[in-house]
């Protein structure tokens, strides 16, 4: 008995330590510390001044390289609040903003600072604006969350309150007035893309969305809608509707799996068969490795679907872009009529990015898929992810809005891209733009005659794949692009016969062993 107690004793001790540890990790820190502006200033200088400026005017050294711009604290206008529209934020609002950061911008969540330090920063930041001395703010009156949201009503409110004017009919931030929007400082500002709730500045939960709707976002064209609802709880319906525009969870990167189907592959981006396939998410970043660099990309991610039938492979690449470049004739008309009194075509949004002033040249929207030219025999080494190099070139599929077509090319590094000969161009494709989203289809035979320049797809192998995307109105072309590093494409295989043989063999082996054992056993008895 003694031994038993010992073992279970030890197990409980281990578990106890384990859970205590977890508790220590989760245990919160003490109450807000006493205000000490000296400490706050030192912390501000160390962690914040590089973007927000020594004087809190948002003119730090990194300011030219980032978009959205750092906040100018001197105006006392804060985006994320629980107070009425136009009012100052509460201290706890500022604390939350520092702690959770501003998703979708360069403002990180400052979890690595202690809570005490974050409170000191709150106190110090308030000294930049005289408003905090003269004005007071109160928490906005909220209604409790309804037990059951009415999404249909929310959709109706989205129309009636004209949310779509900025945020677009499907919420991708492509509304007709989106291009002209300016913030209180005269900088261009983009309406939120409501289909990516992980980029919402104040958080992507229903509660966060509700709060933004009723308090507005100070300093931006987003007003408070507190008084726009017939019944206060209607705001919740709208919040739920907005939430429903984004996926349940932020998507994660997975292997791009090309499903094996029978029959012909879809040739239209709108083919209903695409809807049955899973969309794979790939985050992109600005190309900042080689000149010319793009510090303020406008496309942060793409979704890709893939399908093959053992003879051909087709991809559908989807991404959100607030503007179509070059705009189609229909689009110009549409916008013009929506604008009504405005006679001129939509003005170009100012280039938010570049340090150099003046509006950028406009280019065509485009997308590219990149493969190696040949697979590495070891399966490990890949070409350099930015268009390869002379030793290991890459094979590219590019679609451009201005071509309305897709082309194959090879590159052995930036500015060393050559389109393939006409006879080698076997790639087919088509792109359409609708409600702030591009959908581009690529299709090619798995194997081609031009074995020296085209990647020959093999089923059942992990094929390196990378993507680039360009938003023409953001001055993106050539190396100025959003891009991904290498990911993997996998073409599903038909079930080989061995897949059934091996399990059967295993069954026979084990069953045989059992029979042998039972026989021996009975003989013994």
């Amino acid at each position, binding site marked *: 008995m003694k031994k038993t107690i010992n073992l279970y004793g030890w197990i409980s001790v281990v578990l106890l330590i384990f859970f205590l540890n977890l508790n220590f990790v989760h245990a919160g820190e003490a109450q807000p510390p006493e205000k000490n502006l000296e400490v706050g200033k030192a912390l501000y200088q160390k962690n914040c001044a590089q973007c927000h400026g020594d004087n809190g005017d948002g003119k730090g050294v990194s300011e030219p390289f980032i978009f959205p711009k750092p906040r100018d604290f001197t105006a006392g206008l804060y985006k994320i609040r629980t107070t009425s529209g136009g009012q100052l934020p509460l201290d706890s609002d500022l604390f939350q903003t520092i702690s959770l950061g501003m998703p979708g911008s360069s403002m990180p969540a400052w979890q690595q600072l202690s809570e005490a330090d974050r409170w000191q920063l709150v106190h110090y930041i308030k000294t930049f604006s005289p408003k905090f001395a003269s004005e007071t703010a109160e928490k906005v009156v909220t209604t409790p969350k309804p037990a059951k949201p009415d999404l249909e009503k929310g959709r109706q409110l989205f129309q009636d309150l004209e949310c779509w004017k900025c945020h677009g009919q499907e919420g991708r931030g492509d509304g007709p007035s989106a291009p002209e929007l300016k913030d209180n400082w005269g900088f261009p500002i983009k309406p939120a893309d409501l289909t990516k709730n992980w980029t919402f500045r104040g958080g992507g939960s229903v509660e966060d969305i509700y709060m933004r709707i009723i308090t507005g976002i100070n300093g931006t064209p987003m007003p408070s809608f507190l008084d726009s609802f017939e019944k206060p709880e209607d705001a919740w319906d709208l919040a739920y509707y907005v939430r429903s525009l984004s996926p349940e969870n932020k998507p994660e990167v997975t292997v791009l799996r090309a499903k094996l189907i029978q029959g012909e592959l879809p040739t239209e981006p709108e083919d209903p068969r695409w809807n049955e396939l899973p969309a794979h998410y790939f985050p992109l970043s600005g190309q900042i490795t080689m000149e010319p660099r793009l510090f303020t990309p406008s496309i942060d991610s793409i979704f890709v679907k893939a399908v093959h039938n053992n003879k051909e492979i087709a991809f559908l690449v989807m991404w959100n872009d607030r503007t179509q470049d070059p705009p189609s004739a229909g689009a110009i008309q549409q916008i013009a009529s929506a604008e009504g009194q405005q006679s001129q075509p939509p003005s170009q949004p100012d280039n938010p990015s570049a340090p150099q002033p003046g509006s950028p040249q406009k280019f065509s929207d485009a997308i590219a898929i990149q493969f190696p030219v040949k697979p590495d025999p070891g399966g490990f080494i890949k070409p350099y992810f930015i268009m390869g190099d002379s030793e290991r070139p890459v094979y590219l599929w590019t679609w451009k809005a201005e071509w309305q077509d897709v082309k194959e090319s090879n590159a052995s590094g930036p500015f060393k891209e050559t389109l393939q000969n006409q006879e080698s161009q076997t790639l087919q494709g088509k792109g359409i733009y609708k409600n702030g989203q591009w959908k581009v289809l690529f299709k090619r035979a798995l194997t081609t005659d031009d074995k020296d320049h085209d990647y020959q797809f093999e089923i059942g192998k992990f094929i390196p794949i990378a993507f680039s995307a360009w938003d023409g109105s953001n001055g993106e072309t050539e190396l100025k692009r959003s891009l991904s590093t290498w990911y993997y494409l996998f073409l*599903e295989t038909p079930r080989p016969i061995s897949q059934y043989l091996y399990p059967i063999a295993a069954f026979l082996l084990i069953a045989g062993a059992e029979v042998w054992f039972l026989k021996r056993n009975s003989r013994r008895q």
Partner: protein
Amino acid sequence: MSILRSSFVHAILLLVIAILIFKYGIHPPIPQSLFLLYLIITLFGIFLFVSSSEETWKSFLSPIHATLYDPRFRGVRAVIFIVLPVLATYLVYLRVQPKIEPPAELRTIHPAPPDTISFRNGTIKLQGLGNPLRGDKEHFQEHVNRGKVIYFKNCFYCHGDGLNGEGHFAEGLNPKPANFTDVGTIAQLQESYLFWRIAKGGPNLPTEATPWNSAMPAWENYLTADEIWSVILYLYEATGYQPRKWEQDQ
């Protein structure tokens, strides 16, 4: 015999606890390769635990023996003898399914640096090289401040405001940008190593460090040697770490 005293139950219990801890007790979750490694070591340990004395070994074997031979357990035996081949068949079936887990990448984070590197038009010998600005005590703070400005004009998009590799471009990159606040990065490297990595960037990594995926630019194209050294100074000052010294400094 109390079921709690059976070594067989102990072994199963220990195994379950170990799996729970490895799977759910460590955040963020550990990769499959490490989980397997841990599991194998633990299994080995549990096997030694039950077999290290005659008493526990017998206690461990007796339920197995009983199910195999004892006439009273004929029913259990029959069930097991039916379940076993079916289970094996199923497991083999799962195993021969085409895998779509991407191949694991054996990436060396800190590959061995070369002895000398070319820098712009000259060459720099890395062996034994220290930060030339570190000795300049008089203007030390100036160098650090200059390094900070350079960092926030060039590096922070990826490596982050907090120097933790969580810059706003980090999401789109793989491998993730280095986290300088981690004890495993700059805290255990010589400053010349940082100079090499900053000057030469991703494309010049050796093969085992997957140079094809690193978005780190070769900063020799943008920064002077002095600027790189001052950024290095800033990294150490801001994180509070000391660079690793060369042996002969002792």
